C-alpha cells in the first residue's frame, strides 16, 4: 500500500493564536484523527491579537461549512452581522460613492455580460446606475437582509453574503471547536526556534518556561513578527509598499448609532481611508494611512472626527508593511495569516487569504519527507493569490480623479503592474473584462470597481449594439423592477439578526 505509515506527519505545532492560528487548528482537527496526528497550538496571552471588527467575503461560508459549523451558532458567538458588499465613499472624487456588491449585477443574456447591456442602455440615456440592478446593493441601501433562496428561479437566489465579525471572538469559538477535537493548547510565549543543524528543518520551539515543543510540521501564525518563517528561516519579503503606500492603522470601537448596516463602509481620506464595520454589539472603525504623509496625531484626530457614535475603546495603533513572503512554505514550516503577508483590508481579503493558505495545504497534505514537488506547487498557488488580490486593491488607488492631497497625487500617478494596466485599458476600450481563471474577484466585482472609480468605457461591445434598443431597455426595466421589489419586501437587517442569531447581551 502506498504512503507507508511511518512517513506520516505525527506532530503538528501551530505557533500563535488569533484568527490564523485557530482557523488552522480547527480546519486540521476537523479532518485528522487525534489518535494518529497530534496537533498542538502555542499562544501567549501576553501577545495581543489584532482586530476590532473584521469584514469577510463569501468564501468564508465554505470554510465554516467544511467544518460543519451551524451558521446561527457561529454568528451568535462571533457577534457577527451580515455583509452584502462595500460602499466606497469619496474614492473616485470627493462627494461621490459607489457600491461593490457581492454576487452579480442583473443577469447575463445570450452569453454576453450584463454590464454590456447596461453600458448600451446607459449610453442611450438610461439614468439608472449599474448597482440598481444588483439585489445585494439594493437590499444594502435599504438596510435589509434575508438569506438566499435555494431555488435558482427565485430573484432571492441572487443574494450572496459574508459576515462582519469580532475576530477575537471567532478565534475563541474555533478554539473551543478545536479543543473538542483534541487540539492541545499551551499558553506560553515562544522564545527560541531550534533548527536541525543538518537539514535546516525546525526541530522544536522553546518556551519561556524552558520546555521545548517538538514537531514534524510547524505553522507560523505569529502575525507580523513572523517568528518562524522569517526570524528563524529568513525566507525574505516582497515589498509592495510602492504600490500600496499606507503603512499605519489606528482602530477604535464605537457604540452603534442609526440602523444596523448590512455592508462595510470604506471612506477615502486625505492620506488613506477609513473603515466602518458593524458587529452586533459595536462598530469597528479604523483609519489606514501613509505615515510619511500624515502624522499619527493627525490620523487620530481624523479617525475620531469621522466616527458616528461615542467611542468604547481608546484608539490603538499599529504599523505594517504591505507585501508578502517570498516563500510561504519553506522546509517544514508554513506561514499563515499576517506572517505570510499583508494587504490592507480594503476588500476584506485577510481571512480569505488565511483560508486559502489552509485549504491549499490540505489539498497538498504532505508526508514527513516534504517533497519539493509539493512545496513548490503550494508556493506557486499562494503567490498567485496574493498578486491577484494586490492588483485588485491597487486599482482602487490608481483609478481616481482625486488631486486634493500629496497622497492621491502619488497614487494617481504611480506605475502599476502591467497586468493591471492591460485590464484597465481593455475595459476602457469597450467595457471588456477578461477574468483570469481561478481569480478570486468576479467579472461583476471588476466592473463595479472600474465603473465606480471612474473608468468609463469609450463604448460598449459592438455585438450588443446589434440588438434592438427597445428590447434591451425593456429587459433592463423588468430586471430592475424585480430586484427593487424583492429588496423592499425583506426584513431589516436588525430584525433578521434578532430573530436568527442574536448574540448574548
Amino acid at each position, binding site marked *: *500500500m*502506498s*504512503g507507508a505509515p511511518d512517513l*506520516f506527519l505525527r506532530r503538528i505545532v501551530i505557533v500563535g493564536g488569533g484568527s490564523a492560528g485557530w482557523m488552522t487548528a480547527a480546519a486540521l482537527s476537523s*479532518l485528522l*484523527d487525534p489518535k*494518529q496526528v497530534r496537533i498542538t497550538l502555542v499562544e501567549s496571552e501576553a501577545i495581543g491579537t489584532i482586530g476590532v471588527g473584521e469584514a469577510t467575503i463569501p468564501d468564508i461560508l465554505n470554510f465554516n461549512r467544511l467544518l460543519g459549523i451551524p451558521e446561527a451558532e457561529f454568528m451568535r458567538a462571533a457577534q457577527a452581522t451580515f455583509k452584502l458588499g462595500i460602499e466606497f465613499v469619496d474614492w473616485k472624487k470627493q462627494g461621490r460613492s459607489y457600491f461593490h456588491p457581492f454576487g452579480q449585477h442583473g443577469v447575463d443574456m445570450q*452569453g454576453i455580460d450584463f454590464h454590456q447591456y447596461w453600458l448600451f442602455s446607459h449610453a442611450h440615456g438610461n439614468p439608472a446606475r449599474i448597482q440598481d440592478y444588483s439585489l445585494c446593493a439594493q437590499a444594502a441601501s435599504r438596510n435589509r437582509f434575508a438569506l438566499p433562496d435555494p431555488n435558482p428561479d427565485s430573484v432571492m437566489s441572487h443574494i450572496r453574503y459574508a459576515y462582519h465579525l469580532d475576530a477575537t471572538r471567532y478565534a475563541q469559538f474555533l478554539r473551543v471547536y478545536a479543543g473538542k477535537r483534541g487540539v492541545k493548547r499551551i499558553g506560553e510565549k515562544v522564545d527560541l526556534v531550534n533548527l536541525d543543524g543538518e537539514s535546516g528543518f525546525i526541530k522544536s520551539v522553546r518556551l519561556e518556561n524552558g520546555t521545548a515543543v517538538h514537531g514534524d510540521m510547524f505553522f507560523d501564525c505569529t502575525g507580523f513578527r513572523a517568528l518562524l518563517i522569517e526570524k528563524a528561516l529568513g525566507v525574505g519579503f516582497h515589498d509592495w509598499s510602492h504600490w500600496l503606500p499606507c503603512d499605519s492603522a489606528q482602530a477604535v470601537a464605537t457604540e452603534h448609532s442609526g440602523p444596523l448596516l448590512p455592508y462595510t463602509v470604506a471612506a477615502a481620506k486625505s492620506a488613506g481611508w477609513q473603515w466602518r464595520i458593524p458587529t452586533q454589539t459595536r462598530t469597528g472603525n479604523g483609519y489606514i494611512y501613509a505615515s510619511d504623509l500624515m502624522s499619527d496625531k493627525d490620523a487620530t484626530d481624523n479617525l475620531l472626527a469621522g466616527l458616528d457614535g461615542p467611542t468604547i475603546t481608546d484608539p490603538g495603533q499599529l504599523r505594517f508593511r504591505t507585501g508578502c513572503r517570498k516563500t510561504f512554505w519553506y522546509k517544514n514550516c508554513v506561514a499563515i495569516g499576517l506572517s505570510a503577508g499583508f494587504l490592507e483590508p480594503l476588500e476584506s481579503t485577510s481571512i480569505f487569504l488565511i483560508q486559502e493558505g489552509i485549504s491549499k495545504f490540505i*489539498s*497538498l*497534505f504532505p*508526508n514527513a519527507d516534504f*517533497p519539493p*514537488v*509539493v512545496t*513548490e*506547487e503550494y508556493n506557486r498557488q499562494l503567490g498567485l493569490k496574493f498578486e491577484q488580490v494586490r492588483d485588485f486593491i491597487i486599482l482602487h488607488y490608481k483609478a481616481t480623479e482625486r488631486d486634493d492631497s500629496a497622497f492621491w497625487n502619488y497614487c494617481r500617478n504611480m506605475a502599476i503592474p502591467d497586468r493591471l494596466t*492591460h485590464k484597465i*485599458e*481593455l475595459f*476602457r*476600450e*469597450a467595457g*471588456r473584462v*477578461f477574468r*483570469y*481563471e*481561478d481569480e478570486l474577484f468576479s467579472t461583476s466585482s471588476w466592473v463595479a470597481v472600474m465603473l465606480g472609480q471612474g473608468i468609463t468605457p*469609450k*463604448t460598449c*461591445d*459592438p*455585438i450588443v*449594439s*446589434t440588438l434592438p434598443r427597445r428590447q434591451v431597455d425593456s429587459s433592463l426595466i423588468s430586471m430592475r423592477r424585480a430586484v427593487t421589489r424583492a429588496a423592499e419586501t425583506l426584513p431589516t437587517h436588525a430584525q433578521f439578526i434578532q430573530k436568527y442569531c442574536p448574540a448574548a447581551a
Partner: protein
Amino acid sequence: MDKPVKDILICGGGLAAWITAAALSRALPDEVSLTVLDIPDTDKFDMLYGTVTAPAAYGFFLEIGLSEPDLLRLTHTAFSFGTHYMQWGSPSRSWVQCHHLPFPARDNVPFVHYFTGRTDARLEDFLVSAQAGLRGVFAHPPEQARIPLSRAEYGYLFSPIELCNALKSVVSSRNITVKAHEIRCVRTNETGIFGIETADEKNLQADLFIDCSGPDAKLLTALNTAFTPEREVRASWQCLPSAPPWPPLRNVHGSDRGWTAGTSVRGQKITFQISDTDSEHHKSGRNILFGKREKAWVGNCVATGHAASVIDPVSPAPMMLLQRDVERLLGLIPLSEDMTVEAREYNRRFESDFEHANLFNQALYAIDDAPDTPFWQQAQSRGDKLRRKISQFENRGIPVAFDMESFNEEDWSILHFGMGRKIKNRNFFAELADTRDIDSNLAKLKQSIAQTVLKMPPHHVYISKLIAYLERKNVGRA
C-alpha cells in the same frame, strides 16, 4: 474619435474562413459589412483540423447558427464519446480517452484517490462514456442526474470538408459578400495592410483583415510575422465508403513510425496517417509543419485557424483551438483603427490557448519507454508546465490546472491513468476511509454502468432513427 471599423474582409476559403464568417455574420451589427475572399484551394489542409470535436463544439456550433439537427442533416456527422488509443507507444497500452462530467467525490475524497489502490480495475470501468463507446452504443445523455448515462458527454465525428460546405450554405442566407479569387499581392505599410490585390486586378480594402488562408498565412506572412515550427511530420488521408456498425469513437492506432486514425462518419471511413518525414511507405503524403505564428494579430490583421497555428490532430486540440480563435475574436471585435489593446489581449490568450492545448498533445507522447524511432523521439517535449502536471499527478494525484485550459481536469485524469501513470501517494484522507465501504461502492458503480450500457442501442441504429425523426418533424436544415 478614430475611424470606426466598418468593413471586414475574411481571406480564405476553408473551414477557418467559413466558421469565422458564420460567427461574425451572426454577431456583428448590420452597419459592418462582411466580405469573404474565397481563395481557391485554401481548404487543402482542412483535414488537419482532425475529424473529431470535444463536447464544447455543440454549444459553439449552435452559437454560430448551426444546430445539431442542421449538422446531422447537412453532413454525415456522427456522435463521439471520445478517442480509443490503441497500442500507444507500446503494444500493451490502450485506453478510451472519453468525455465525462466531473467524477463524483466521496467523503471529501476525489474519485481518482478513492478508486486508486483499492482495485485492479481501470478508471474506464467506472466511466459510462468509455463503456458505451467500447460497445458501440449511443444515446443522448439525459438530464436526470440519477441515471448513470447523465455523466457522459459527447462530441462529434465529422468530415472537415462537409462541415465547411454546410457552413457555406448556412452563411449564404445572410448578408455577406463573397468573391472568389486568388490573391496577387498584399499591400502593407507600417500600420498593417492597406489593400489586397486579387488576380482580377481588383484592390480590396477593409478596416480589419482576417487571415484564414491556411498554413501559408498569406496576410501575416506579408506582415513579416514569423512562424515558430515545433516539428515536421508526414501526413496522408483518404476516405472510403463503409457500412455500419460505426463506432461512436475515433480509433487511433500507434505504431513505431507514427499513428493511424480511423473515423467512421455515416457511410464513410476517414483514415488519417501521420509518420516521420523519412517514412518510405508513405510516399503519397505531404510534409506538415506543426507550430504557431509568433503573433496572431498584427496591426489590422488577425488570423484564425491554420494561419495562426497548426497543431497535431492526435487529440481534438485543432478544433478546440479553431473554436477558441473565433470566440477570442468575437470578444475583441475592434471598434476603431487603433487596435493595439485588442491585439495585445488576443495575442496573450492565443499564446496561452495554444500552449495549453499543446500540453495535452505533448502529454500523449510523454512516454518514458517510447519506441526508439524518429517519430516518437521527435515528439518528446516536456516543458516546465508539463513536468509539473505529470509530477504532481504521479506524486499525489493532484490535478494542476492552468488558466482557461481547453482540456479539463477529467480529460487529464483519464489521460494519465490511460497511459499507465500511477499515483504514488494517495490522498491522506482516502487512507482514513473504510476500505470495505469503498470496495462495495466501486462494485455497485461498475455494475450500474454495465447495466446501463446493455440497454443502449447501437450507434448507427440510434442515429438513423434520430435522422428519420428529424426529417419527419422537419427539424433542421437539409
